[in-house]
């Protein structure tokens, strides 16, 4: 902000990176987001030749969100300290990213295999749709959220294949959204080198 003011004094327009970062506390209605998201889905649905392609496009959109979220949160919440360990980045996604985007931390984080972790959420806020068929609704939200995770992991240096799937939960009407992260071999090798 100081640099921005200095530039203004010199008659230069401060670029966007010199302005203070927003505090991240403003809101919009869930309705507004739902309408925007359903239009995003609709846009890709008419252009995709398969459900898999639709999910891929939604995941790509999510990656854009995740990638930028990493920058904003690392700066705002982590004093620019970057996670270099797997557990660290997983906690970052589970807590910081989820809380910023969805208003709460994720419900669960489990390890399936050496290279596979699963993040679970009982009800992603993006699931609450307006005027989009419910059967496809959850699938699309999952793909988008998976993309967000993928974007964060990729830009943080932990490349992984990320996908979303559903799991029935006893005593719950709606299924749980699970986000499966399968990490590239180089990530695990690096973890070993750094001392597991």
């Amino acid at each position, binding site marked *: 902000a100081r640099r921005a003011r200095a530039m203004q004094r010199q008659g230069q*327009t401060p*670029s*966007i990176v010199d302005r203070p970062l*927003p505090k*991240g506390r*403003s*809101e*919009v*209605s*869930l*309705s*507004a*987001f739902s*309408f*925007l*998201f359903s*239009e*995003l889905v*609709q*846009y*890709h649905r008419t*252009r995709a030749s398969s459900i898999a392609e639709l999910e891929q*496009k939604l995941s*790509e*959109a*999510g990656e*854009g*969100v995740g990638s*930028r*979220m990493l920058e*904003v949160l690392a700066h705002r919440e982590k004093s620019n300290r970057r996670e270099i360990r797997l557990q660290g980045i997983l906690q970052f996604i589970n807590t910081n990213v989820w809380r*910023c*985007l*969805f*208003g709460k931390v994720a419900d669960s984080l489990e390890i399936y295999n050496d290279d596979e972790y699963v993040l679970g959420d009982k009800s992603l*806020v993006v699931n609450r749709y*307006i*005027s989009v068929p419910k059967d496809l609704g959850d699938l699309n939200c999952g793909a988008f959220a998976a993309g967000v995770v993928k974007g964060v992991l990729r830009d943080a240096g932990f490349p992984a294949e990320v996908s979303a799937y559903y799991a029935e939960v006893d005593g719950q009407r709606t299924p749980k959204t699970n986000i499966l992260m399968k990490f590239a071999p180089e990530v695990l090798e690096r973890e070993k080198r750094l001392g597991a």
Partner: protein
Amino acid sequence: GHAGARGVAMASHRTRSGGRGNPEHAGNAAWLATEKVNAELFTLTYGALVMQVMRDCEDCVEEVNKRLDKMGVSIGSRLIEDFLAKTNTTQRCASFKETCEVVALVGLKMFLGLTCVVTNWSLENTECDILFEHLNPFCEFVELPDRFVQDDLKYCQLLCGVVRGALLAIGTKTECEFVSDKLKGDETFVMHMKFLGNVEDEYPFED
């Protein structure tokens, strides 16, 4: 009789929602009552949408502007139902002036949390400007590369489409454009509204 009952119903409607004469109260009340999400989720998702449309249109700005507008109209035509339901609206606006006040003070407030002012009315009250304090839900974090400023990318065109589409769905044809755009280096965001006519007044095409 019937008129008396309707009179009572309208009186209680006025009491409940703060009255037709106070769109600012109605807007604030609806904003307070609505479920909300982090604005950054909206902003980044919109940004991702614009980027994908840009790529699909191979950076052709004219195509992108058209596409964003079209998506906005599609949203507007569905959003109007949500608006009417949430604001308990049962009556038509009496004039274009009232329509624009409702758009600016109720609509933009309850969906996006924006505080706007309607001003610069033309003599016949068919044109006006909506002034925005900011357009952060769309534009936070956004800076347009020079070539897109030069080619006149209308980054926020989706919002214009939403307003036009919503009004069209209730029979009011309008033009709706940003005549001042901070992303292009202007001081403020100003949306210009122009009344074009009511749909039912149109001459039927079949003779």
